[in-house]
């Protein structure tokens, strides 16, 4: 190939490693900043519209959420319902979420980290409180999924009902969330958490969490 002007001037750039590194950094940062910064600069209403009824996780629910992370449930379950009729029909069978029954940003403001998932080997769980409200069913299912759900490929989690939750750890986490991220936990919330967590198993926490999913936004007047 003939040597073009571009190739020639680039060859001189290839001799200057520092300049090359700086230009590479600049090329990376343009798109990098455009993708990552605007959400934080935009008024929060534009990126995530708040929903008044959404409440923080209680102590027991928070413990359950951490277990959901620990056991890697998000590797197979999503928590994000897309705006397709066939998807909202499946994940809002009781029509509890009005005429826009898909996921909205405001529903996730207390989710650190987010748990939308990327793979739906099992069903979506974002509206689980409305789809399977029975705690007893969840207990049986978590211990041995195939007992209530024939041919399920989900692992069993029998140990969740043998291990106790450590209340102090959970309370400490609630304090961090309150102090660092301004999560509006009241003194009552802490008192309730102590009570709930006193003799709870990990399984109790997991079920409390599953039954929190979709509860705050279900069956709201005017939806």
């Amino acid at each position, binding site marked *: *190939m003939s040597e073009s002007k*571009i*190739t020639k001037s680039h060859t001189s750039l290839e*001799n200057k*490693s520092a300049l*090359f*590194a700086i230009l590479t*950094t600049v*090329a990376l940062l343009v*798109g*990098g900043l*455009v*993708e*990552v910064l*605007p*959400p*934080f600069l935009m008024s929060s209403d*534009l*990126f*995530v519209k708040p929903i008044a009824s959404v409440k923080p996780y209680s102590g027991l629910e928070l413990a359950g959420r951490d277990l959901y*992370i620990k056991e*890697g449930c*998000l*590797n197979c379950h*999503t928590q994000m319902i*897309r*705006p*397709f*009729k*066939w*998807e909202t029909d*499946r994940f809002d069978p009781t029509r509890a979420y009005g005429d826009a029954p898909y*996921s909205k*940003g405001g*529903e996730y*403001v207390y*989710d650190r*980290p*987010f*748990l*939308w*998932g*990327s*793979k*739906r*080997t*099992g*069903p979506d769980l974002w509206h689980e409180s409305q789809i399977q409200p029975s705690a007893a069913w969840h207990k049986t299912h978590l211990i041995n*999924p195939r007992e209530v759900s024939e*041919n*399920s*490929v*989900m*692992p069993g*989690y029998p*140990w969740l009902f043998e291990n106790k939750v450590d209340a102090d750890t959970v309370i400490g*986490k609630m304090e*961090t*969330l309150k102090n660092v*991220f301004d999560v509006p936990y009241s003194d009552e919330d802490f008192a309730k958490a102590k009570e709930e967590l006193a003799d709870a198993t990990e399984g109790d926490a997991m079920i409390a969490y599953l039954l929190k999913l979709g509860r705050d936004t279900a069956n709201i007047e005017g939806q």
Partner: protein
Amino acid sequence: MEHNKGNYSNGVVKGFLISAVVWGVVGMLVGLIIAFQLVFPSLNLDLPWTSFGRLRPLHTNAIIFGFALSIVFAGVYHSMQRVLRTRLFSDTLAKIHLILYNTIIVLAAVTLLLGYSQAKEYAELEWPIDILVAVMWVIFTINFFGTLAIRKEKQMFVAIWFFMATVIAVPILYIVNNLAIPTGLFSSYSIFSGSFDANVQWWYGHNAVAFVLTTPFLGIMYYYFPKHIKLPLYSHRLSIVHFWSLVFIYIWAGPHHLLWSPVPDWAQSLGTAFSIMLILPSWGGMLNGFLTLTQAKEKVQTDATLKFFLVAITFYGMSTFEGPMMSLKSVNGLSHFTDWTIGHVHAGALGWVGFMSIAMLYYLVPRVWHTKLYSEKFANWHFWLGTLGILLYVVSMWVSGITEGLLWRAVDSSTGELLYKSWNYITDQLWAMRLVRALGGTLYLTGMILMGYNLYKTVQLSPSRTKQA
């Protein structure tokens, strides 16, 4: 060391080559176990540390950070000394890098099995390990730029550009996405919440693919492929154009992982648009590889290493076309959350990253140990086992994913009711395809083990070894 007679440090290269084979086999074995768990759930054994949810992050981390990164470090340390005509800036730093790196991977494996996780994909490792990773990367960066500073060849060969992009981009992505407030020694909460967190995570996740699994492997292709066929790179100009466009465009495409989500439409559209644009720089690299190969067509029939290079480049081209197609909102509506995504990832991981790594291993192990490959026949066997494995894997996941996506959305045309309300019914339909996938994985892993044996015997043929014995 005696066998290090040249002016280049080879010890650290050997260390990373061994790490690559070990973590590669371990990571793929875990992958195979979880593939079978999806077909036979009793294999989860009802135990915490053998259940799918804990093993899957171990699989992805072992492959991306154990296997692929070992290959990258070996390739960078080996090739940069040669194209820059200088010894590494610091052998000591390189040695610390190797030890710290393997310590991190062991810590990662242990903590993931114990369930310590930040829950963000490919960023599961908790904050103390994240800090170790950052320290390791600083050491690598010092050695990389230090070596550039003392180079005797002024002109940086194209492979160096791609390595440099990785050295610079990875810490930016890794640090921002892992920002978290610790709540214990191995627990933390992300400083970002909900949609913000999703946006940052997939900006990171997508660019982990870009700067861990793409740019350094293009660097490896640019150095080892022409070296292997002993012919020059086809086009310098094409390298220039596709390097800068790739580095500029890739980083925009993250939100294509969040189509139809609560993340605002402008971000989603930006992700889609840049994903489509990404076809051009990606195919620029593929074409430069293919056109380089056209100079040595006749060798393809006999040379196993060359076959691996060729198929790796083919899968690079295929995956970088499939990816942008899956970034179109209409296609994504069908493919997202299904096995199709898993198939897409593995076309890239097994085909492009895996085969490029394997080609480099077959090229490099005999050279750094100053000997010949023990068995070309085994390498050929490995090629066919691997290729057949990938095909079974990818095709079964296409069928499974599209089946799944179609069954989710199937409605009765007169009533509009969902036709397949039972989730387990849908899962049942995918069973056979998921079994085929696990068999494909079995073939691929068998090839890897055969390679491990072949390379082990190769190292035993090393003259320094026989002298010692």
